[in-house]
């Protein structure tokens, strides 16, 4: 199976979010960047497991500038065979999807895997857009995937439950929790990653359909109101009379 996994770079999950330039830019000073957890733990690791079981290749693709390379090396250390970077600012989801779709079309993959969302912009958009541009079936929020030949049995989250479905390759899938278990790269993987191929390709022309104009932080939480542990009835009272939610 020839698999393409879309990898993105996001601020570490514990990052304190700040903005600069009058709230027009994300302040990345002192921020540690990681591979988006859904891309790494679920999409990439499941791709590796499928390759280990049945042969094939796992290539990662990232749309971004050189500052993505450390994160790409991390994905290579986890076990991807090689990596592609489309050398352009990831301006919006459609632009990113157009780049990934274009590369995937030219190189004939059995599957394109993405994470269910990035933890910074929380779009949940790129995977679906790649599928639509490539005219392939899209399986969103998948938590399990098994193969028999080129036929996959997949479980995905739907409103109120789960759906089990069958689909033949090629397709595009976004991965959620359950797909696989996180793998911590070992020393050998980290050394090997340094020698693996990272191909840089120039972008195709594509339009961004949206643009971030500014950011804002949520208003500060007011002071917490403490209630005596011996008198929890007071909580029910406050929720009813003050907060008016029960």
């Amino acid at each position, binding site marked *: 199976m020839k698999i393409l996994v879309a990898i993105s770079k996001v601020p570490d*999950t514990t*990052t304190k979010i700040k*903005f600069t330039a009058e709230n027009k830019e994300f302040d990345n000073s002192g921020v540690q960047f990681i591979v988006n*957890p*859904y891309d790494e733990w679920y999409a990439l690791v499941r791709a590796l497991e499928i390759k280990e079981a049945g042969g094939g290749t796992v290539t990662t693709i990232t749309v971004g500038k050189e500052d993505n390379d450390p994160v790409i090396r991390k994905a290579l250390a986890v076990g991807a065979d090689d990596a592609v970077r489309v050398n352009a600012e990831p301006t*919006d989801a*459609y632009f990113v999807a157009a780049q990934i779709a274009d590369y995937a079309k030219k190189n004939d993959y059995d599957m394109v895997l993405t994470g*269910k*969302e990035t*933890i910074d912009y*929380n779009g*949940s958009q*790129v995977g*679906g*857009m790649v*599928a*639509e541009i490539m005219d392939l*079936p*899209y*399986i*969103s*929020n998948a938590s399990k995937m098994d193969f028999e030949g080129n036929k996959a*049995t997949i479980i995905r989250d*739907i*409103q*109120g*439950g*789960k*759906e*089990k*479905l*069958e689909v033949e390759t090629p397709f595009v899938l976004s991965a959620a*929790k359950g797909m696989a278990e996180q793998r911590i790269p070992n020393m050998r993987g980290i050394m090997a990653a340094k020698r693996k191929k990272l191909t840089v390709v120039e972008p195709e022309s594509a339009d961004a*359909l*949206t*643009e*971030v*104009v*500014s*950011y*804002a*932080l*949520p208003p500060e*939480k*007011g002071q*917490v*109101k*403490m*209630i*005596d*542990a011996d008198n*929890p*009835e007071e*909580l*029910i009272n*406050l*929720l009813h009379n003050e*907060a008016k*939610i*029960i």
Partner: protein
Amino acid sequence: MAVLAFVDTLEGSITKSSYEAVHYAAKVAEKTGESAVAVTYGDASNDDLKALGKFGASKVLVHKEQKDMNPRALTTLMQEAVAAEGADVVVFAQDFTGKAVAPLLSARLKAGLVSGAVDYPDTDNGFVVKKSAFSGKAFAMYSIKTEKKIISILPNSVGKEAGEGEAEVVEFTPALGDTRIKVLEVEKESGDGEIPLTEADLVVSAGRGLKGPENWQMVLDLAKELGAATACSRPVADMEWRPHHEHVGQTGVAIRPNLYIAIGISGAIQHLAGVNGSKVIVVINTDEEAPFFKAADYGIVGDAFEVVPKLVEAAKAHKAAN
């Protein structure tokens, strides 16, 4: 011209977030002098569909033969509805269905999509939509630059208001056929009468502070008395104390109920990422230094094993009195 709202159904009932999508579409339509049209599929009753008029829809297009949540088929349904109604804005709820369909429609129509919107668009200067970003830690203002626009709203961010009115229900049956995905089985998450977590107004959640799965009965009791759904922290799901679909947070589900009660949960940043959109947060924890108190509206420093049973009694009394 029209503003479309995509309406999803769950076992024949219209989902709560779909009412919000209709309400949102009606508000946008009011601003732009258009009408709001709901588009749906499956088994909702005609009475329920007519009643979408109360939330501001003037018309409902319904495709009854389409039963599955097939993303491509539903994309075609929306594409055809956009053409039939000359729509320039389409509204989805950012739930599992919206996440599966909205990006496809965006790419198909080359219409800019803002997902996770939390407010109405600002149309004074272009078309700018405020969305939740950085897992609830901030907001981003997005300008949509295309003529057609798609907005997917976070559940429970704009609410819904029922007024008067009845929508005209029209059968709408364009060919949708996408047979490449074959549904084998659908498994429901919640038992009969239980409230699915993503639809719940009130949520009671517990963490590792409860020590073991055998101690969950009081949590279930509290949820039952309040009419709430139940949730848990990640380690609790990882240790299989509770089912995985209850796991909230950065890697689990993100929820935005009116009330979130956190029992024996420390309030790690990755947990908060999934619940910080809740309107009111209550924290019950033995450790007064637990970070969760900083994000709370009400707090009780105390032992869950003593506090929660008393709360169950108080909730019971409250229910009886109201």
